[in-house]
């Protein structure tokens, strides 16, 4: 049972890491294009668009890196889950307002902001939330606090 849980945690970690790294590299390397995508949503005033989009791109990249290497897994999973919940809300909002623009989620575009994208992010949220509760230790360099099984924590 414990091995199965560790296996699911490892698979979830690598999956979420892959999603975030794939999503982030283009945003980091082409900050102007991502700032444009963020501005499309009109959620933040224009003077905040550049800084918020740049920080978000790097946040995604760092989360991906932390999850790949298994460093501070629970903290990274909390961030990734929070971001995914935010993205889901954003996609629903975009769907409600009839937006037809690209969601700006992944390189190359082709993903319109809306309900379908919200559903996709909901799928990504499942393994991310799993990691919040079961960060796991397999192939993790420094999983951080909360990664040990509860029974071990009680004994120490």
């Amino acid at each position, binding site marked *: 049972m414990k091995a199965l849980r560790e296996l699911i945690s490892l698979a979830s970690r690598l999956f979420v890491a892959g999603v975030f790294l794939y999503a982030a590299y283009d945003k*980091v*390397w*082409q*900050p*102007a294009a991502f*700032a*444009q995508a963020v*501005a*499309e949503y*009109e*959620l*933040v*005033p*224009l*003077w905040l*668009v*550049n*800084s918020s989009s*740049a*920080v*978000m*791109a*790097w*946040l995604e*990249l*760092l*989360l991906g890196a*932390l999850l790949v290497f298994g460093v*501070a897994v*629970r*903290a*990274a999973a*909390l*961030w990734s889950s929070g971001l995914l919940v935010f993205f889901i809300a954003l996609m629903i909002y975009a769907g409600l*307002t*009839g*937006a*037809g*623009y690209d969601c700006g989620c992944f390189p190359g575009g082709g993903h319109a902001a809306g309900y379908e994208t919200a559903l996709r992010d909901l799928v990504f949220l499942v393994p991310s939330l799993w990691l919040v509760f079961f960060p796991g230790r397999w192939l993790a360099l420094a999983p*951080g*606090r*909360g990664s040990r099984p509860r029974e071990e*924590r*009680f004994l120490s």
Partner: protein
Amino acid sequence: MTLLAKGVITPQRRSHIPWAACLIILLASAACAWLFNAFMPQGIGLTPAHVSHPLWQGVSLERAARMYGQGALFVDARDPGQYKRSHIRGAVNLSPVEREYLYPLLKPSLEAAKRIVVYGKGVSRFPAAEIGQFLRQQGFGEVWVMEAGLDEWRAAGHPLREPKRPGNSS
């Protein structure tokens, strides 16, 4: 009495939310973003040029409505999907995404207009400010960016075009 004091949760059962690690991740992201954008050639400034060095002028809802009555051309800078749902009556659509295709088509109308008022949704002024900046760069003299969005325009009872959608009984 707290739940801890009542014994509902024990110290061992309290969740360990790694606040410090979360904060460090955020600060590291902000530091990386700042360093990258400050030193890489493709880096972007803290604010866009059409905000830090605007060529357009802002205009209040009331004044924009007066300009509308005087025959100013209104440019809807929002996404074409949003434009189709509703827009100011008589407004043309010129969004940043489709600018390179739409601008040549709209150029005669824009050149014929004495005044141009650009609007977006109002919260961020995007994409109105960007289109306003673009039009000024193209040599148009009187380009105004409406400070209010379409919702405020609607609430004030000004003319709108909202095609009826299937299932819309009103």
